[in-house]
């Protein structure tokens, strides 16, 4: 059992509260991702778990044991650093064996374990090389290998893929996930890349400004963002936001955006007229024509809540099978993701359809989801 529990953990650097008293429970054998913009406190949190930063107040428990005042080496953790932190003067094998040698493990056992780990990571051929003779991806694997050799209960990753090129990053993402499935140790992984977070994590912790905004599975986070920050952080291209106001008219509640754009609301529980809200709509929920979503005829009729918005196409960015369109409407500039279509010409004016069944509403003041 190596679960990690953070209780009211706080970290101050002088007057700055880098981590403002967070509570978090990482379950045993879970792949948990800490994600957020730079300066949000995610790395500080990880470093406090590792013991590289002192905790200002609060308690950290690993496997039921309080480690708040323990040295890093006594915490049953291993860590993979952003820059890999390989010892440049040691061979790959020595790099991986270093922590075991310090622990005074018999040489035969060390060799055996290093051999096993090297095999898992496909490093057996590189054991006698020095780090600088390796490619970026190989170094990354050595860093992971050195951490694996420890057989620690908790593995910590500090943005391990950010120094790799795009292709390798995608590959290593899969590799790390596969690794987690085979070794079954608890992993806490820090990244600023929401794609990494969405694809790799069992659960995601979204942090901003030293506090946790939301904890949940990737789908929960994507489908039910707790607030405007989370909604805007997850998804690429990001969600579009429009400032607006609820208005009551004969047909019920409608949403009045700036520029006189009036949209029907499918929900009735969003408050009363006059409330200032923010409409959030993902790029894929803005459509070129009404009802091109592949739904059954009946289902479509039931859920059809599409609103027509006149917009001017500004930029068209083809991605191959999809295209990202930047358009300007009375309510503001927004992006949509759709299939390539002849009507999408920069400078042309066209009707677009907002799928209001997939719309999110946030309170303008608190930014919490409504």
């Amino acid at each position: 059992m190596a679960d990690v529990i953070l209780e009211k953990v706080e970290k101050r650097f002088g007057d700055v509260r880098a981590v403002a008293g967070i509570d978090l429970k990482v379950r045993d054998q879970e792949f948990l991702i800490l994600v957020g913009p730079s300066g949000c406190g995610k790395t500080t949190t990880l470093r406090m778990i590792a013991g590289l930063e002192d905790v200002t107040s609060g308690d950290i428990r690993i496997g039921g044991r309080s480690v708040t005042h323990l040295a890093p080496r006594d915490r049953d953790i291993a860590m993979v650093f952003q820059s890999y932190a390989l010892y440049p003067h040691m061979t790959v094998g020595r790099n991986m064996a270093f922590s075991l040698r310090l622990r005074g493990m018999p040489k035969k056992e060390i060799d055996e374990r290093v051999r096993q780990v090297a095999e898992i990571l496909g490093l057996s051929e590189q054991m006698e090389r020095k780090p600088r003779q390796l490619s970026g991806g190989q170094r990354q694997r050595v860093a992971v290998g050195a951490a694996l050799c420890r057989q620690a209960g908790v593995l910590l990753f500090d943005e391990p893929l950010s120094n790799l090129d795009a292709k390798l990053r995608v590959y290593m993402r899969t590799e790390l996930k596969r690794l987690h499935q085979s070794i079954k140790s608890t992993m806490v992984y820090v990244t600023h890349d929401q794609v990494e977070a969405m694809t790799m994590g069992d659960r995601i912790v979204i942090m901003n400004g030293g506090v946790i905004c939301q904890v949940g599975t990737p789908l929960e986070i994507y489908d039910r963002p707790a607030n405007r920050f989370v909604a805007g952080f997850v998804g690429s291209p990001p969600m579009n936001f429009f400032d607006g106001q609820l208005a009551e008219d004969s047909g019920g509640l409608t949403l009045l955006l700036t520029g006189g754009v009036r949209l029907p609301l499918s929900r009735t529980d969003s408050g009363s007229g006059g409330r200032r809200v923010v409409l959030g709509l993902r790029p894929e929920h803005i459509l070129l024509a009404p009802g091109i979503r592949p739904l059954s005829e009946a289902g479509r009729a039931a859920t059809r809540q599409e609103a027509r918005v006149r917009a001017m196409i500004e930029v068209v960015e083809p991605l191959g099978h999809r295209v990202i369109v930047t358009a300007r409407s009375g309510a503001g500039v927004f992006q949509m993701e759709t299939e390539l279509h002849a009507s999408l010409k920069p400078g042309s004016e066209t009707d677009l359809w907002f799928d209001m069944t997939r719309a999110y509403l946030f309170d303008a003041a608190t930014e919490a989801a409504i």
Partner: protein
Amino acid sequence: MADDAGTRRLRLLDREAPLGYVLVLPAVVYLALFIAYPFFMSIYLSLTDAQAGNRKWTFVGSKNYSKVENYQILASDFVLASVPTEAEASALVAARGEGKVVTAADGRAFRASLVVGGRTIPVLRMDKEDDASFVGGTILSDLDWRVEKTSSGFRVVAHTPDAPITFGPFPDRAALKRGETETVLVPATMKAKANGKGVMQDPNFLLALKNTFKYTFGTEIIKLCIGIPCAMLLNRRFGGRRVLRGLLVIPWVIPIAISAQAWLWILDSTYSVINWCLVHWGLLAPAHIINFRGDKDWAMLSVILVNVWRGFPFTTIVILAGLTAIPDEILERARLDGANAFQRFLYIISPMVRPILMVSLLFSVIFSFTDFNTIWIITKGGPYDQTQVLSTYAYQLGVNAGYLGKGAAVSLFMFPLMAVMVFFMLQFLRKEA
């Protein structure tokens, strides 16, 4: 046609290579005049018998470097007898008062034997009967006879208290070889000594060579001992660190002529401030004040300390550069891996600093090995040549004494020695990298 020439000239002006040559020309002239010329001149001088005041220099080849005229054997610690018990050995020593030397013809030479306590010990074989008898007598009555314990018993050794006994001269190596086996007939410690006019046969040169190594390595070791902790200290974050880093380089940037003068006063035989402090604090009796520059044991240490004082800032700065180049994450990983401060220093920091340390050592060794200023200002090579190094000896021999050829030979001797040292250090560096 005129146009064509015009564009060609323009093109010449436009090209960078000619400009580069023009800019570098003064430096080339300087190097040729003040470095290459003196260097080749000194090579030439070292191959002639040039002397101050002589008009004609004759070419003498390598004579200035090495010219052996004859060899001598320096023998000491003659093992006179090996006996099973201590009593027998003591008896033999006690009987030496009644012992005598007997000489007998042995071929063309004469053999001297000691007759002591009923034993006849053949010890020497020399060409002249007088010599054999005289040296035999010396061994019998002047040397210090001792009983020593060996693995299988005891032996009597005639120990030479100060100077060893010399045999010879032998004209060449073959004669020397024969002499080693045929002259001294008992086991003894024997050393061959070459006499001649070349610097290799000059005992002062050999002393200067030894002193140069003492001076260089003494300096380097102490510099490292001071430089490494200083660099680690300055690598920590604390208030005033930048000021301290700035202050650190002061010894290094002060002209040596000035700082050595200050040291001259600090190390003064009468007014030394160090002595004053030690006496003042009651650590030293006024009668025993240290003569830093005049005492043969202190002189070398004094000049080494001055050189260390001057050179350690450079070592410190270089090591500091090496330390700051170690990424924080590596040290953090070492902490996570379970290394304590000492282990981090041993396994991570030192190996990572070593390459740059070797570079600084390389510079610093060259610097100390050829250093003239410090020693010349502080001790001028004295007392009794105890701080004489190659550079000061070359100056004394070549300039003060006027033996230009020999002086040049001494100074050129530094080249092959340094080349060898630099070669091995670079070799080590390459292996590291």
